[in-house]
């Protein structure tokens, strides 16, 4: 259970809460990250967890989003986050119904005056890990495992492929979708077939399905410690997930981190200070430090590669390189190389 927070910060004038999708605040992904941001905000402002402070509600099914958002409205939270693109409709609807309340949505855009939208340039972060993969691969065969084939994940895919191609035109990227974000068995089977076919780096954007990718890589590594195979994590720093038991090594090459916590913290602070960006869509990219590669990358990636990554990062930030977000854009990007 939650450790009791400082009690003196009694019902202050500003309260904030979020609704997670079914993943919950410990999904090792954006829900967890968002909650970390909210916790940080709450603690720094002396709020307590619960009504009148900061809080979250977890949804048990798609049908719960609206109910949970509504519940938070009823509990008079000043700013209410819907976490995840799945919540788009529910946020749109409640924003209409409660025009006097302030809402925010992460990973999607809702065009309402009382909704602030937060999205990320996942393609930019993916591009960077793509650069890492392209430079680190020995076999010139790289894999991408997506959760579901939806536009959001397509952004990861396109950015990643662009990053690989940019630094290593000879490398091929094999793309597979598991069809779900919670099918570790499929993740494992896909990883197994990819590694068996000579792929040595797999980037997963597949939530819990990615657990299977990690488990396969770890098992292979345990069987043959000399095997050079890697996983690239997503959303958070997944270095720990890649730890090979009995060693201090990790199969995690790098991770594409998405700073939902930063964005959530940011927006909550703005709103508290009376600068609620209602009706706006704020996009967090490399420039805003909203996406990037994990600091643990240095454990497995040599200095010169990191340097290259930094160069590309600068190019993206100053607009020299426009990272593709769809497959069509990727085709153009590829042609332009």
């Amino acid at each position: 259970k939650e450790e009791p927070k400082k009690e003196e910060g009694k019902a202050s004038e500003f309260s904030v809460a979020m609704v997670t999708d079914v993943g919950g605040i410990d999904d090792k992904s954006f829900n967890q990250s968002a909650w970390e941001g909210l916790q940080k905000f709450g603690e720094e402002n002396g709020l307590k967890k619960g009504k009148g402070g900061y809080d979250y509600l977890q949804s048990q099914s798609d049908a719960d989003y609206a109910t949970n958002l509504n519940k938070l409205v009823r509990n008079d939270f000043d700013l209410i986050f819907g976490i995840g693109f799945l919540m788009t409709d529910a946020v749109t609807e409640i924003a209409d119904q409660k025009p006097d309340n302030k809402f925010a949505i992460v990973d999607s855009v809702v065009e309402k005056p009382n909704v602030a939208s937060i999205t990320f340039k996942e393609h930019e972060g993916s591009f960077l890990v793509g650069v890492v993969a392209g430079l680190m691969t020995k076999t010139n065969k790289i894999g991408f495992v997506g959760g579901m084939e939806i536009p959001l994940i397509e952004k990861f895919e396109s950015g990643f492929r662009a990053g690989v191609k940019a630094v290593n035109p000879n490398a091929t990227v094999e793309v597979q979708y598991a069809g779900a974000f919670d099918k570790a068995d499929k993740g494992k089977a896909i990883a197994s077939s990819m590694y068996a076919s000579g792929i040595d780096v797999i980037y997963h954007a597949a939530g819990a399905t990615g657990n299977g990718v990690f488990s396969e890589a770890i098992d292979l590594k345990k069987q043959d410690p000399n095997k050079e195979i890697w996983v690239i994590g997503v959303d958070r720093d997944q270095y720990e997930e890649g730890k090979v038991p009995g060693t201090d090594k990790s199969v995690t090459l790098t991770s594409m981190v998405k700073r939902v916590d930063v964005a959530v913290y940011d927006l909550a602070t703005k709103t508290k200070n009376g600068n609620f960006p209602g009706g706006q869509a704020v996009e967090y990219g490399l420039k805003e430090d909203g996406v990037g590669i994990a600091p643990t990358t240095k454990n497995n990636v040599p200095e010169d590669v990191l340097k290259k990554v930094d160069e590309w990062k600068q190019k993206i930030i100053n607009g020299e390189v426009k990272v593709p977000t769809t497959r069509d854009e990727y085709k153009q990007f590829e042609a332009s190389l």
Partner: protein
Amino acid sequence: MLNILEIIIPSAIFFAAPLIFTALGGVFSERSGVVNIGLEGLMVIGAFTGVVFNLTFADQFGQLTPWLAMLVAMVVASIFSLMHAVAAISLRADQVVSGVAINFLALGLSLFLVKMWYGKGQTDQVQVGFDKIDIPILSKIPVIGPILFSNGYLPSYLAIVLAFVVWYVIYKTPFGLRLRAVGEHPMAADTMGINVAKMRYIAVMLSGALAGIGGSIYATIISRDFSHATISGQGFMALAAMIFGKWHPLGAMGAALFFGFAQSLSIVGQAIPFLKNVPTVYLLILPYALTILALTGFIGRADAPKALGTPYVKGKR
């Protein structure tokens, strides 16, 4: 082509192993006349117990942990299945209803405990899993060695061996004969001095034990943690495998391997050149469509044990 088989077959076997264990459990239970659609829930308990044990005791037991976790999961799931046994055998419950209750309870209880113990919706990742192995000697056989005996997990091979053991037990030993008698005609068994209730209790608990193993190896090898999504439908697939295999241990194993094969084909298929342009949805539904086709085409009707689903009440005609 061989290369493709080297990819498909080991992954088929690893997909199939938890299903084989669980389906064999189902064979015991249903052969004794007790419907067990609670297999899903029993797998959940197995997965939960296996992961929690592994996380808690990995430091003490080291490499032995996953095996001990498997045994503990077996015991706990078997105790849990007692609920189904009491309801279905002693309390004459509708066995389907009781099985549904088991499924709900297993998931609710284990997630409740996870929240209580770990303060979150899922456990951490287990650190000590089963190792991938090449079976000595056998894996050196040309052609089939790499396909069948390399890159596998010991529990997977154990599952296949167990199917033969179960076959032996059910068809060659007095215990098996009595078990089948109880499932076909409990009153006849009763008049022959066989304790129907006792046989059924044993059978249901065996089903719990085996489903517990199935769940725990699934969680340890594949998901590595326990959450609401760890076991999602595998128990039902095992049930299907058991019916598909006509309540026969080797049939159930064959069906489970078939599911594993279809599943693995649907994944690896995306990488096979001539399947590459097939829309993914066709590959995704492949395992399920193939199963239906197989049932329709060449398996035909399966006869369930005659007394399946009916509580035995002494002296009732």
